[in-house]
């Protein structure tokens, strides 16, 4: 081994040619994307715009942003759009709460020793996963056609406790909330069940041996550990629900997409308003993803010896890594132990 006088040897890092080619392609693609997003195109009206430059009059066709950013900006924070956004958030939150609470009950029923309870839960999931959510949404919207009054009582014998007019409860919003929530429960019950059975049986036994009741065992020992398994797919479900809630516009709930659609129905600016809706969905999804990350970190307590870095810590270490790459020259001098 050739060694310099000071006992160091030159180390030549391996060249990743195919990776560099991939990076070049990606860079070209990103540049194209940025270019098209920021590009301007001539108006279809054929109007000309003229300027006087150095005493000469110069005319050119009028232009606008290809993606109508000015129109997007104009509508981005109108009260109609913001009201729609609020309704979307409410619908997502309420449907998820129904889905999670009901889903958890279904999951526990599914794991029950009682065959009746577990098959009831199974049948629920079978039914609500087996029919399209759009069909269910419409079904709940027209529920008054089946039940003009909602009655709580005992079947077969004529005992009723409460009777309410269906239309007075099932407003468009409530119908959408119930439809999305009950549908979500079917999916969430499977997520919760997978989390519950992922927790080692020894944890339950240890809790029992301390004298904990079944409820305490579930609440204090099993669920907190199941959360690690439950959270990532639940984050998925929340984000999915955010977007699925746009189906509620079909039963005239004016949520985000409903609001932008209403506006574009009036002014024919279809593309800009689709972009307005998309941008809001993206913003909320981003916020939710960040929240999910920190929630997952919280429930990872004890499961990992060293918790993963926060995104800020990771960005910092990435930047440090890239900087140090530039600082050290290729073919680093590395000290060799004698």
């Amino acid at each position, binding site marked *: 081994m050739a060694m310099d006088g000071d006992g160091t040897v030159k180390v030549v890092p391996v060249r990743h040619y195919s990776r560099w080619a991939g990076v070049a392609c990606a860079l070209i693609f990103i540049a194209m994307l940025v270019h098209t997003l920021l590009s301007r195109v001539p108006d279809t009206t054929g109007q000309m715009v003229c300027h006087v430059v150095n005493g000469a009059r110069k005319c050119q066709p009028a232009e606008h942003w290809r993606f109508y950013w000015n129109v997007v900006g104009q509508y981005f924070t109108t009260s109609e759009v913001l009201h729609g956004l609020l309704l979307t958030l409410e619908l997502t939150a309420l449907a998820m709460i129904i889905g999670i609470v009901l889903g958890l009950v279904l999951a526990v029923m599914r794991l029950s020793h009682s065959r009746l309870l577990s098959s009831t839960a199974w049948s629920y999931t079978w039914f609500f996963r087996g029919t399209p959510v759009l069909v269910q949404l419409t079904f709940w919207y027209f529920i008054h056609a089946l039940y003009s009054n909602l009655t709580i009582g005992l079947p077969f014998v004529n005992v009723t406790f409460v009777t309410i007019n269906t239309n007075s409860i099932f407003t468009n919003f409530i119908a959408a909330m119930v439809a999305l929530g009950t549908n979500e429960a079917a999916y969430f019950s499977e997520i919760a069940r997978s989390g519950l059975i992922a927790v*080692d049986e*020894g*944890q339950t*036994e*240890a*809790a*029992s*041996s*301390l*004298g*904990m*009741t*079944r409820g*305490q065992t579930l609440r*204090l*020992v099993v669920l*907190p*550990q199941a959360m690690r398994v439950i959270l990532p797919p639940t984050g998925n479900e929340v984000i999915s629900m955010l977007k699925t809630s746009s189906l509620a516009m079909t039963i005239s709930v004016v949520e985000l997409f409903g609001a932008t659609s209403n506006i574009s129905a009036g002014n024919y600016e279809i593309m800009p308003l689709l972009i307005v809706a998309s941008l809001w969905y993206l913003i909320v999804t981003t916020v939710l993803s960040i929240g999910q990350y920190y929630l997952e970190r919280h*429930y990872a*307590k*004890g*499961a*990992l*010896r060293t918790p993963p870095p926060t995104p800020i810590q990771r960005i910092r270490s990435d930047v440090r890594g890239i900087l140090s790459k530039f600082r050290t020259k290729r073919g680093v001098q590395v000290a060799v132990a004698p």
Partner: protein
Amino acid sequence: MNTPMVEARGVHKSYAGIEVLKGVDLTVTRGEVTCLIGPSGSGKSTLLRCINHLEKHDAGELRVDGGLVGYEARGGKLYELNDKQICAERAQIGMVFQRFNLFQHLTVLENVTVGQVKVKGSSVEAANAKARELLTRVGLESKEKNYPSQLSGGQQQRVAIARALAMEPKLMLFDEPTSALDPELVGEVLDVMKDLARSGMTMIVVTHEMNFAKEVANTVYFLDGGVIEESGDPRVVLTTPSSERLKSFLSKVL
């Protein structure tokens, strides 16, 4: 107080048609250490789990501290206890598992306090004080903020013992407490158990540590095929076994 802590008469237990316990008789005197030895599948762990009702025995009489396990005798009938009553019974019996079963999402301190606070209803301050005292006793006072995954097997098992002791049990059950440990870590757990035995705790220990049995146990029971083959003073039973089966078992483990 002359009733034995645990008394089993003809205890039977089957899983899916396979009989694991075929009529076991056993008596555990208060303040004594009893070791259950025997080949795997002989029913030692099952017997232990029946005593704190993690498993329900099918037939026979099983009493802890004079009371029937899982039932109440009233007017010539046996009434099955409800969940709450069974939990109250279990809270008085500590159990240490082969695979520690510490609550992974709780710190060492929380593992030792959770039962005190949630089951016994102690205040958090009292529970913390007791937990720290017990952690000191098992030599882990510096680890209270750690999570179980950050501890060695021997340390985890000592925390598990502290967790069980925090409930102030009248009886401690050990289900092969050193079988999942690296050989070099076995000693630290056995030391804690010896210390506990000296303090007068009634203990039933399922173990393969014959030296521990010889040194600490007052009585040893040898189970094979779901029945007690031989029992008595460990210094006698383990050195001059009378049955052929115990002789061959001992020749394999010693």
